[in-house]
């Protein structure tokens, strides 16, 4: 998000889901779309059937590879090198959108200079992608009239995550693909309302609609709206909070519907840190791994038991409606927040989610024109500044949010922890089709468990041979931070030397192994690369 915000002026998916089906070329990288965003995956496949070209850049042989015109299998964590290689070829062969670059962007000369050394041969050495394939992909991307880039956590969960995102922006702008229908740079958000949580200011540095807390005008506006004195100092990110808890500088943590005890890297360490808190409040549907460590646990309503809105990955604000009553005494999260706030002497009196939304629209310019009445007819994509505005299908038409699109010269840096003699395998983590995030909801579904009852370690057949591991056999996976046991599944999806595990199951918690090294700007942990050893258990 920080990457796109810096280059375009807005961190959201530039284009819409519906456009994916009707574009000329799709470049999918770091997204196992058919498993993690099946409905978008469906649209990608439908597009291909109708003649859209597909380039997949992914270390794993994901389902979409079957549909791809070109598959570049890079070594994990070498994305910047691969994209710089594409840029190198496109510039060297003069295939870029010269007028667009001249009129709508800045920083091209620095970019050109930076990518000069990323010749296909040099990139092959770093990434393992054959030089000829790289050239073919570069030409195919550059020659498409409209090309859409799709990416997800395979791009962001690296220490170079922000650089990777900026590289996507470089590529898209170089070929004039930002600000047109069917084009764009499209981060596929992994959770139902991650876009909305960001839009609403669930971030340490911004108020709703990304208004900076450090900006005096913004702060004054919110001080007036909320009738309170506000701090000008940006707060801590999630990983910094955990550190601060360990050091004793954070004493209380209030957690609404999150499960860091399964989702965060290096869990042993997280647990130690959380235990040092004076007060931990958790509100959730279930007694999660995190809730078990809390001082207060509050039961809340699920999405089916309350009213509200979610904002999807394409900025579409859509209604959530109550279908059944919550069990027992469980309340909607917003009612709980109001209850605590009122007891603390800061009045929060709302009769319904609708009333809260009306306040949101007042202080959030991009949501200003949205109301529950309008949402009855269907979702609206922000920015929607007025009640008459129809919403925005794609961003940066004619002009970037920041004015000119900014090219960023980026150098490749290697992942923080690569395989060595002691830990010879590279571990990547992610999701599988049948489960979701920390599994608190999906592992309680009969059908989903029937299809995928447990964590599996995906191992390439050649490695399985060497390790003398057969299908379904238990293996022990060890990193510098911990050990996990799970069954092996032998598949060519994983490249030789790499294994893949999901993070859905608490009894084989892969985040006991992962490396907490962070991207310096996005503060995202490097889930996609760490070094492990694998042995038959």
């Amino acid at each position: 998000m920080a990457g796109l915000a810096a280059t375009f002026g807005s961190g959201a998916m530039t284009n819409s889901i519906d456009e994916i089906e009707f574009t000329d070329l799709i470049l999918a990288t770091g997204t196992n779309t058919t498993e993690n965003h099946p409905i978008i995956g469906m649209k990608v496949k439908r597009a291909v059937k109708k003649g859209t070209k597909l380039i997949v850049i992914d270390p794993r042989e994901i389902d979409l590879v079957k549909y791809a015109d070109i598959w570049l299998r890079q070594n994990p964590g070498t994305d910047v090198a691969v994209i710089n290689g594409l840029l190198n070829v496109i510039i060297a062969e003069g295939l870029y959108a010269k007028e667009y670059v001249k009129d709508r962007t800045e920083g091209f000369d620095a970019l050109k200079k930076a990518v000069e050394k990323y010749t296909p041969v040099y990139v092959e050495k770093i990434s393992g992608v054959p030089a000829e394939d790289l050239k073919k992909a570069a030409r195919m991307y550059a020659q498409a009239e409209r090309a859409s880039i799709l990416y997800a956590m395979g791009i962001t969960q690296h220490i170079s995550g922000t650089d990777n995102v900026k590289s996507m922006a470089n590529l898209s702008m170089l070929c004039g693909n930002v600000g047109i229908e069917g084009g764009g740079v499209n981060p596929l958000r992994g959770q139902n309302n991650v876009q909305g949580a960001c839009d609403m200011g669930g971030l340490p540095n911004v108020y709703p609609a990304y208004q900076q807390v450090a900006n005096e005008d913004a702060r004054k506006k919110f001080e007036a709206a909320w009738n309170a004195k506000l701090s000008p100092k940006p707060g801590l990110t999630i990983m910094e909070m955990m550190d601060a808890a360990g050091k004793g500088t954070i004493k209380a943590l209030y957690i609404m519907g999150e499960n860091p005890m399964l989702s965060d890297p290096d869990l042993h360490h997280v647990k130690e840190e959380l235990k040092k808190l004076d007060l931990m409040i958790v509100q959730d549907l279930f007694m999660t791994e995190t809730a078990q460590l809390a001082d207060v646990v509050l039961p809340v309503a699920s999405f089916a038991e309350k009213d509200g809105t979610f904002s999807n990955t394409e900025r579409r604000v859509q209604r959530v409606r109550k279908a059944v009553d919550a069990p027992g005494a469980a309340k909607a999260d917003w009612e709980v927040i109001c209850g605590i706030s009122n007891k603390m002497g800061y009045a929060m009196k709302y009769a319904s989610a609708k009333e809260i939304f009306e306040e949101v629209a007042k202080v959030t310019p991009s949501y200003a024109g949205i109301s529950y009445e309008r949402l009855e007819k269907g979702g609206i994509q922000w920015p929607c500044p007025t009640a008459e505005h129809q919403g925005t299908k794609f961003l940066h038409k004619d002009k970037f949010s920041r004015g000119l699109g900014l090219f960023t010269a980026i150098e490749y840096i290697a992942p923080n922890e690569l395989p060595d003699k002691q830990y010879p395998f590279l571990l990547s983590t992610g999701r599988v089709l049948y489960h979701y995030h920390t599994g608190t909801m999906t592992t309680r579904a009969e059908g989903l468990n029937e299809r995928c009852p447990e964590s599996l370690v995906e191992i390439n057949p050649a490695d399985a041979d060497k390790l003398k591991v057969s299908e379904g056999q238990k293996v022990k996976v060890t990193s510098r931070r911990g050990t996990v046991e799970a069954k092996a599944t032998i598949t060519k999806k994983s490249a030789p030397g790499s294994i893949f595990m999901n993070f859905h199951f608490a009894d084989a918690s892969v985040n006991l192994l992962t490396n907490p090294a962070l991207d310096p700007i996005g503060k995202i942990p490097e889930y996609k690369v760490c070094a492990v050893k694998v042995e038959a258990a």
Partner: protein
Amino acid sequence: MENKIKVTLDGKEVSADPGQTILELARDNGIFIPTLCHYQKTTNVGACRVCVVEVENARSLVAACCMPVTPNMVIRTATKAVRNAQKMIIELLWSSGDHNCLSCEQNGQCELQNLVYWLKIDQPRFEIKAPGYALDNSNTMIMRDLNKCILCGRCVRACNEIQVNEVLDFASRSSKAKVGPAFDDDYINSSCVFCGECLQVCPTGAITFKQAKFGGRPWELNKVRTTCTYCGVGCQMDLYTKDNKIVKVMGNREYGSPNQGSLCVKGRFGMDFVAHPDRLKTPMIRYKKNEDFKEASWDEAFKFIADKLSKIKKENGADCIAGLSSARCTNEENYLFQKFMRAAIGTNNVDHCARL
């Protein structure tokens, strides 16, 4: 639009777009032509023939779903010959399967049943002889009873053309023809990913939502439109409920973007958690570290939290308090959460798991 062509439809002159099918033209003009195999946004195959109409000078009745209109075409949709043909088709379909509405889940929303009624058929003229296939009861999500299959092929097209999962196809020929995954396997042993598109498009009770079986008749269920709680696509879906329980989840083509009525396995079959016995039902407080949780009232919980937070803020400053808001919760809740942290507590220490 230019290039309109003129045709006569049931005695009235109407204008049509070139390339439009007779079915589309009839629907535009408010004339009902029954269909079974036809399904929006999939290939027209003209398999069931129930949409037949008379076209002057045509050799025989033509399938309205496949036939494009041509200039000066004269079309009749409701003649005796048309109705007789439709009745014959429906009676043949009825008699070649086990269409027992008494226990069928589709009773009340079955398109075959609707056409039997619409065509005023009391009994089929032919002996009812179901093929006697074994039920595919192999999994907990999708139930298949090929004895109720009318071979319209909608599931095959939904699987291949809508979802592009490429699992289902026709096998065998003539009276042995059937639909299913490769090698005539049960779904659970096939490459099926259980999106459930097939059960959503099935016009009869051949493919149904297994967990909904005996969960309620269509007219007993409440339908609530909402947004899926899983990934970031934000699929629009209908939750069907009865007696305060979710019975089943269906997509709805009328809702349009972003999913046009399609769902994935998690959205359709992943809602067991809502009514799961593990759900938390009462606030719980651990008054001292290492003690067990004790159940509490909301008022006790709010007071406990407010007192503790106020004390920590007073002794150590607001920046000693942090909060994790949630990519799982609504916009309204995220807004209030950050407002609470910033205005009531006085810190910007608020983040969520966007990065994870």
